[in-house]
């Protein structure tokens, strides 16, 4: 604002009319006390016209709008770390470089319950995590009865490379220990790209990482499944998927072989006095697989094996079949189909027979189950006696007797 001087040419009730040195006229607002003479020099302070005020106001308004729009960006620029937390509630926390919470987002409905009122803003991450854990226990996402899962991914933004994951891990472990909750805690570092990809797929960062890992391993999982199934199942998805595959595709021999071996070993521990020949794992595995897993084919195979072994060495055959018995009993148990139980049924009686022939102690041990079903023992013993002369009958009789035992 500057002082402007002009010559008074007229006085009205509202204005003092001036003629300016450049020949233009100017109406200046007059106060009651201002009564200058015509021809007198009058100095006034130039005020900004209303349209200029309007322009200034408009500029200010635009500036305010820009500021309003930029506040989220400014907030983002202050964000130093993003912590993705998956318990089952999926939460994303933005913090500054001192781990003070700037923003907290719930990724799923469960998280809405936990962080509904955004009471965590401006609190410190570790305090908030403790509170979240407490709420998760309260809502039953974590409990004392079964092992829970907590996945944490720390995403440091550009220029923030302080490793806070250990701090977070130790804090969470401490909190969980105090609450006496058993939890499998997984914590890792990732990048903003992963987070962006997770957001593109509408997943939390942790779920996206699990999904990505599963996909890389060749496990068939859809994004929708990764989003919907509980974290526990997602963590064990591969295992579950494997078990499903075993159930529906019984031809996978590797798995069955492993199981046969495992059961065989158990059996070895109990029957430690047996000969090295009898402990041939390959034979056991074959029997195990045929007996335990192959279901409908078992009867035929076991019969075949019985044939060959009975020709070569009846004792050996008995020992081998003995292992198969325990395997089938101990591992597969109730899952065995009637056909497989028929196949397996041959062997207990044979095993008991062999035990009884080899050592007294063993007999006593193995006679325990035999005592429970004396009839079947008798039947199998008689079958063994008759086996050499009448193979067909043996197999048929033994099947019947074993069926009896299983029943």
């Amino acid at each position, binding site marked *: 604002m500057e002082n402007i001087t002009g*010559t008074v*040419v*007229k*006085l*009205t*009730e509202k*204005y003092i*009319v001036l*003629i*300016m*040195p*450049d*020949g*233009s*006229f*100017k*109406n200046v607002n*007059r106060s*009651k*006390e201002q*009564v*200058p*003479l*015509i*021809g*007198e*020099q009058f100095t006034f302070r130039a005020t900004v016209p209303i349209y200029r005020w309007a322009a200034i106001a408009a500029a200010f308004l635009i500036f305010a709008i820009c500021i309003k729009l930029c506040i989220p960006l400014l907030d983002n620029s202050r964000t130093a770390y993003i912590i993705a937390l998956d318990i089952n509630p999926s939460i994303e926390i933005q913090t500054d470089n001192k781990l003070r919470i700037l923003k907290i987002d719930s990724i799923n409905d469960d998280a809405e319950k936990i962080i509904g009122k955004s009471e965590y803003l401006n609190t410190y991450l570790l305090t908030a995590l403790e509170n979240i854990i407490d709420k998760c226990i309260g809502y039953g996402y974590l409990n004392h009865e079964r092992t829970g899962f907590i996945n944490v991914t720390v995403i440091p933004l550009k220029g923030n490379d302080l490793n806070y994951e250990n701090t977070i891990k130790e804090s969470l472990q401490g909190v969980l220990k105090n609450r006496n909750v058993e939890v499998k805690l997984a914590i890792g570092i990732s990048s903003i790209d992963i987070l962006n990809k997770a957001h593109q797929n509408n997943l939390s960062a942790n779920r996206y990482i699990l999904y990505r890992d599963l996909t890389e391993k060749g496990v068939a999982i859809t994004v929708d499944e990764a989003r919907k199934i509980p974290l526990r199942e997602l963590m064990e998805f591969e295992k579950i998927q494997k078990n499903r595959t075993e159930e529906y595709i019984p031809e996978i021999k590797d798995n069955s072989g492993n199981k046969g071996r495992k059961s065989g070993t158990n059996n070895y521990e109990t029957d430690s006095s047996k000969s090295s020949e009898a402990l041939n794992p390959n034979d056991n595995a074959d029997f195990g697989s045929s007996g335990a897993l192959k279901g409908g084919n078992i009867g035929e195979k076991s019969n075949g094996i019985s044939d060959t072994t009975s020709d070569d060495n009846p004792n050996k055959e008995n020992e081998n079949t003995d292992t198969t018995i325990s395997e089938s009993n101990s591992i597969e148990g109730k899952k065995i189909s009637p056909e497989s139980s028929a196949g397996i049924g041959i062997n207990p009686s044979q095993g008991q027979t062999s035990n009884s022939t080899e050592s007294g102690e063993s007999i006593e041990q193995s006679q325990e189950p035999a005592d429970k079903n004396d009839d079947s023992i008798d039947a199998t013993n008689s079958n063994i006696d008759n086996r050499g002369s009448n193979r067909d009958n043996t197999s048929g009789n033994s099947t019947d007797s074993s069926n009896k035992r299983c029943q």
Partner: protein
Amino acid sequence: MEQAQFEQEVKNARMGNELARQNIIKNSRSYIINVVSHVCKRFVTWNDDEASIGLLAFNRAIDSYEEGKGRSLLSYAYCLIRRDLINHFRKNHRNELSLDYLYDHSNSFSSDEILITAEEIEISVRDYLEKVESSDLAAEISELETILEEYGIGFEELEASSPKHRDTRELTMRMIADFLTDEELRYDFIRKKRFPATAFAKKKDYPLKTVERHRKYLIAMLIIKLHPEWQHLSGYVRID
């Protein structure tokens, strides 16, 4: 009106020429009311008693004005108007504020000394002469206002049509120069008391819209330009 012509007019009025008197008063009306307002320290209209006192004082100034004493009629009239108004306030004691004002300015004078002496009037006149560059300017302004009224324009209307930027001001000055060179346009302007905007725009090839926008301002400037005897006001219309 030139000084000699004006003095002759005053002489005629003093000699009893009522037309000349009316003409002088008519041209000085805005000045009279302005002086009254100035002395009263408030905005006075012709409906107020003070305006009448001022008018009577001015009329008396015409009668008692003596040429060749180094002062103009208006400055002499100012002194008379001021004195009459002060006497009026003293007599009526109505306007306390005005009396207070007078006391403030008389400083050490006692109540007995409130009467304004001739010496004091002289001091006031000197102050006034110092304050106003020339009373002639006031006379010119009053005269201009009277002529503008004939065109239906008041001073307060001129701001809206005044050029705001330098280039527009230069354009309006070129318009005035072009207008004055055309005798026909000048004749219409003076005789018909109107600005022939359309004819001017057509003849001199100016945008009619621009001419119309600055019409009142052009009229004021043309009047000043057509009165070269207004030495002070002529300074405000500089055509390069």
